[in-house]
């Protein structure tokens, strides 16, 4: 009987609702603590992840923070305005700017930074000395643990008006570059610092994937006289392909969700035109100018599109690689 039920469950929930309830009660009685244990996690999940979802109602209301007893209560007490905020948003001149910046900055990051860790991992794998390899790994990995503020401080020191880079430029007879306020170079600063922080982390992911490639393949290739480049091209890269595809899917899937803290810390009014992304704009109009409803509408737009992207990314990943990204 029990075996039958388990089999039925494996086959895809062939149990009737009643059987399921009986099964649940039985399990609950045998393992009450397993369910009690879930409470702390759910407590925080509901407070910080699900309760704000209810707050999205603000996007369709004329939110007045003083309408109710507390800010969340005020949401229910505020008046419905339909799609007013979305109309205002989509007709504003700022919307296309922040949407374009978000897509351009994150696409450039993928374009320039995506291949580097793959190459780095392949090269790192060629380093014979174990100690030297470890030293190199440590060196390229450590910036990943610096906060964006620390990285801002470091690059402020390097790239400031009187930073070392400008000193070198001027000693070469070139003019100084205002890296943080010049619209033509600011995106470059974002891309470079992103790479500086993240390359080590991604390299280690690829390095771990390389070690799973069957080493006899290389031996065989060498006996057949394959050059190093040919080995990389015909063995290493195909072996890495699932990881490469997965990483790319993830990067594209999260294209609307990345870069917020970095831009928030690095940017300033002089570069808003090229650096202001959706989330920084949401932050400024929402919590800076107290335009809560408009900000929530834009946040909701962002969340919906991001959701569609991530779910599509997951579908692609399942189709191509047979694995879910979460």
């Amino acid at each position, binding site marked *: 009987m029990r075996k039958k039920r388990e089999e039925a469950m494996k086959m895809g929930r062939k149990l009737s609702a009643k059987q399921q309830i009986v099964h649940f009660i039985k*399990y609950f009685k045998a*393992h009450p603590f397993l369910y009690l244990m879930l409470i702390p996690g759910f407590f*925080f999940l509901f407070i910080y992840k699900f309760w704000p979802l209810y*707050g999205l109602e603000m996007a369709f209301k004329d939110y007045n923070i003083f309408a109710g007893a507390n800010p969340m209560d005020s949401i229910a007490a505020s008046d419905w305005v339909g799609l007013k905020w979305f109309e205002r948003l989509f007709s504003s001149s700022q919307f296309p700017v922040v949407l374009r910046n978000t897509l351009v900055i994150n696409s450039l990051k993928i374009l320039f930074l995506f291949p580097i860790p793959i190459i780095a991992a392949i090269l790192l794998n060629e380093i014979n000395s174990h100690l030297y390899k470890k030293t190199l790994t440590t060196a390229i990995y450590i910036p990943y643990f610096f906060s964006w503020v620390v990285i801002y401080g*470091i690059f402020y020191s390097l790239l400031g008006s009187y930073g070392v880079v400008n000193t070198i430029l001027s000693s070469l007879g070139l003019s100084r570059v205002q890296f943080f306020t010049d619209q033509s170079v600011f995106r470059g600063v974002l891309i470079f610092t992103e790479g*500086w922080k993240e390359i080590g982390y991604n390299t280690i992911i690829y390095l771990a994937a390389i070690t799973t490639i069957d080493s006899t393949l290389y031996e065989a290739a060498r006996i057949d006289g394959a050059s190093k480049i040919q080995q990389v091209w015909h063995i290493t890269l195909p072996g890495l392909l699932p990881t490469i595809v997965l990483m790319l899917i993830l990067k594209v899937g999260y294209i609307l969700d990345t870069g917020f803290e970095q831009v928030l810390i690095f940017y300033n009014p002089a570069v808003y035109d090229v650096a202001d992304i959706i989330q920084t704009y949401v932050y400024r109009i929402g919590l800076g100018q107290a335009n809560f409803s408009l900000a929530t509408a834009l946040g909701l737009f962002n969340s919906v599109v991001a959701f569609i992207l991530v779910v599509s990314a997951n579908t692609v990943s399942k189709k191509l690689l047979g694995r*879910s990204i979460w």
Partner: protein
Amino acid sequence: MTGSRIRKLKLKSTSERAFTIAAYIIMTALALICIFPCLHVFSKSISGGNLVATGQIYFTPKAIQFETMEYILEKTEFFNCLKNTLIVTVLGTAISMFTTITTAYPLSKPKMPGRKLFVMLYVISMVFFGGIVPAYMVVNTLGILDTYWAIILPFAIVQFNMFVMKSYFEGLPESIEEAAQIDGASDVQTLVRIVIPMSKPVIATVSLLYAVNYWNNYFHAMMYTNSSSMRTLQVYLYDIINNGQAFLESLYSGSLGTNLGNSMVNITTDGMVAAAVTLSIIPIIAVYPFVQRYLIKGITLGSVKG
């Protein structure tokens, strides 16, 4: 062992050797790109003020002085902000680990009815975000603005970390747990006495991931706190970088300046930024060698989940 190695070396063709040499050169260059900026900031933090202000410091300190460091430590809020960051990191990591383990353990039981639904809730919360304005309103409503709780709440349970923990638990041999339960151990006893001791590596890894999150986070601390006594290290650092000039002017104009006398020459805006950055990196660099292997494990654990 050595024999095969020698044979391998002998077998190496010129093209292979060229490839290896290129690997050494390129990777060394990449590592230097990562290290030099840190060296630069460190050098600036302890070099003479004139040299710093005129951009003559590269990657080695010159005219070494510690007045800037002393100034940051003694005359600014550094220690208070460090204290805030430490409290948030330690308290936050403890809370997060508690919720993560107590959630991951039941969800790792394949036979638990309702498990799929619970997992689904965590996945949904991962892919759909309510946005920063509603989140701010929640924190405001809870009445915890400007407290440590507001900074801890967003990371109280990070879904990704919970899933890393869950898949580790799923990989543990079931037989040991079953034996304990036959001996009459409850689920809590099994978790505490058997599962947790068997999971030390993943617990170390996930704790570190949380600790790094808490230590480095700027946005939540900036958004949810406003009094200057609640500033964390990251907020403090950001203020110094952006308002270093104002800091310095208050120093020169106030009575403080006259007391410091000649040594003032050494304290510059750039030097202050460099010293503050250096002081906030030191804890990370100091801990890093001891925890690196757990952090590397964290990446590989994360990337093989699913």
